[in-house]
């Protein structure tokens, strides 16, 4: 059943005529053409589909689109501003916190939400908060390094 659903996506208002039970991941990837958010497992156990709703990292592969009605949704495509990378994106690239890159958008979005919540997390906190995001190439050390670089700089992620 189609429904009219409005929310803000990467800072811009969107209005969709969709079945509200459809999953946010597929609405993003198909209807909205934002393919940076990836499908990895379909059961919220890998984190490749992570987006930020409000200030929380959520797994879009199990989230019905109606759940974001009236909310702010940020995807990996929304982090870059005026051609300038977000500090986390810069840090992942500089530290080499990626290999095949498939888990990278989910990693960055998860880390983005973490830094919104805790601008200067301890290493233990980073490990705990990132633990549900899987990286098969095993770039873990450099991912943590990237997050720490941003967290320790003045002003945090801003």
């Amino acid at each position, binding site marked *: 059943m189609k429904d009219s659903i409005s929310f803000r996506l990467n800072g811009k208002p969107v209005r969709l005529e969709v079945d509200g039970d459809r999953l946010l991941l597929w609405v993003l990837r198909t209807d909205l053409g934002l393919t940076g958010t990836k499908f990895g497992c379909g059961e919220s156990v890998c984190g490749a589909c992570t987006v930020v709703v409000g200030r929380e990292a959520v797994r879009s592969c199990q989230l019905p689109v109606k759940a974001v009605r009236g909310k702010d949704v940020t995807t990996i495509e929304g982090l870059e501003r005026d051609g300038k990378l977000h500090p986390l994106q810069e840090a992942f690239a500089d530290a*080499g916190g990626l*290999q095949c*890159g498939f888990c990278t958008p989910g990693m960055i979005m998860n880390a983005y939400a973490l830094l919104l919540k805790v601008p200067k997390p301890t290493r233990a906190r980073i490990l705990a908060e990132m633990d549900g*995001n899987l990286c*098969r190439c095993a770039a873990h050390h450099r991912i943590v390094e990237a997050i720490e670089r941003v967290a320790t700089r003045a002003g945090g992620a801003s």
Partner: protein
Amino acid sequence: MTVDPSALAPAPAPASAGQPSSPEGRSLDRRDFVRLLGGGIIVLFTADLSDLLGQEARTRGYPTDFNAYLKIAADGRVTVYSGKIEMGQGVVTSLAQMAADELDVSLDSIDMVMGDTALCPFDAGTYGSMSTRFFGPALRAAAAEARAVLLALAAEELKVPAEALKVEGGVISATSNPKARVTFGQLAKGQKIVHTLDGKAVTKAVSAFRVMGKPEKRRDARAKVTGKAQYAGDVRLPGMLYAKVLRPPAHGATLKSVDTSAAARLPGVVVVNEDGLVAVLHADPEATEKALAAVKAEYDVPKPAFDDRTVFAHLLSVAGEGEEREKKGDLVEGERKSVSLFEGRYLNGYGAHASIETHTALARLDGDTMTVWSSTQTPFPNQQAIAQAIGFAKEDVRVITPFVGGGFGGKSSAGLQAIEAAKLAKRTGKPVQVCWTRAEEFFLDAFRPAAVVAIRSGVDAEGKLCLWDYQVYAAGSRSAEQFYDVPNNLIRVYGRWGSDTPKMHLFATGPWRAPGANINVFARESQIDTMAAAAKVDPLEFRLNNTSDKRMRGVLEAASRKFGWKKAAGPSGRGVGVACGIDAGTYVALMAEVKVDVATGSVKVVRIVCAQDMGVVINPDGAKMQMEGCVMMGLGYTLSEEVRFEGGRILTRNFDTYELPRFSGMPELETVLVKNDELSPQGGGEPALVPVGAVVANAIFDATGARLFQMPMTAERVKEALLAVRRKPST
């Protein structure tokens, strides 16, 4: 995939204009090929895979004397065309470094066009840590050749002898008169020079490297951190449909009946049921899942014969005679000289590749040609398999490989997902995407082989190895090669992985990052450790006492320095271990420290040091990334990853039951590159993975006195081993 510094995303859907693709999309003979290349300076070259290339290329009607080329265009840009692909291993950066250095141009002026069967000459595939080892030298030679051609042209143009010219940043100038200068682009303009590499090109000495040997940031990083990097599943075409394919509940099951009528009644659903391929298609990927659930299918499922516990007995029972791989001395003599004899049997179950990107493809029919965007390590074999499956000529199938979201060997098969997409596109006339679910990915994976290794070994009165009788079942002998000084040595192999061998395995098996090597090194290095402990000798010292191999001694000593290894016979209670191995021409030594929770059996790896001698290092940062990734990924096969099954039913369906290494399991990790510029670059994508199982097993032994004989070393197995130690009266 196309990567150049100015473009954020890899090759867009259609081929960009001006590329050497024939108007008919047909295969090219050498003359056509060269005609279509357009102007510029072109060097055709081939990697050292001539047997593979020759055979394949001949059957394909392609030119057989090159499998890659580079071109210098009138705008001065250099483009490398290669059938290799980028799956995270970093060759899109390291190969470009090689070309830039040999040509004396900036890294920014290199574009890489990879894995597109219409634009790149045949390449067998990206696997086996071969891109840098075999493709690299050929690419460097081609770039050096191009540089020589440009120098000759410049000498003519500037009326200055070539010896009096210098090259910098793509500009050639007279050493004595900087104003006499000409750019590569100016020289290439209006030219049509085609060279085939003849082996005479002189590449740079390591001391002259300017781009190679320097840590270089990944060139694909920006595209990947912005979400713009395109993978097979990200390509969008107008009118495309998403497909889900009906799968049996178990391998070996046969379809008795299928009723798709309920699925067909769902709005917008297209059903295909043709030659055993039952699929539902829809413009919305979620609708395909609902439609598939509405398909009623009945299967005959054979009674389970084996499961993940009994598979080892099965492998031994079908092993046959085996074949000798190495033989030296006399085992009877070795046994006679031994003061102590040791027997060990080591097990490893089936493992999954578990790339985060599942197998995905999008196929589009254009008249009588088929274009397929495929997540594959082997675009050309993919192309051939698709063509055969849909009854097209190979030349009428084009495979484009965007970025690949992890491969590890798992995407080097025929490409079933690409075949399915192509069949469905042919049948429906619409572009069709097939993207496997995680459960399909586990079910259809060609697993890392389950395997058994049995070793009988002995030491003489001087503590020297004098007997090594090594039998490996079902995994092949990669990395089992003997580098210890054993006068009486036998390595015998009973079957391996892959489909071309006697049918030993219960499932399809395939290459899995250093195929077979992980179990072989686990077995050998565990056995060596057992012998050292029995001799009451420090395990590092025992190894050094028993190998005169310089490179192995070099990496062991480098690891020891970095780790701060302190001599003690095991088990010392400290929980430290050492293991070493050779893979893809590279030598690796690992040292680890673990903590074992004796109550639960769980193992925490606290620290790992990895020392590696890989010959000349092209991109030290890239090499270290691979070492770190190998070690960290290796902790998965070591501690947790195992495919569970019952007969043909694969019980492992998602990451909740197939545990990959996580952030919380990160050890402190240090890597050391042992300098060896005397040797050409060796493999980097796999070697550091191979001793991970052994180094952890040896550290567990050092911590507890318990010896683990089976990977993964789950908490349950560690607990069992601890109980076995307690039950055993101390000697």
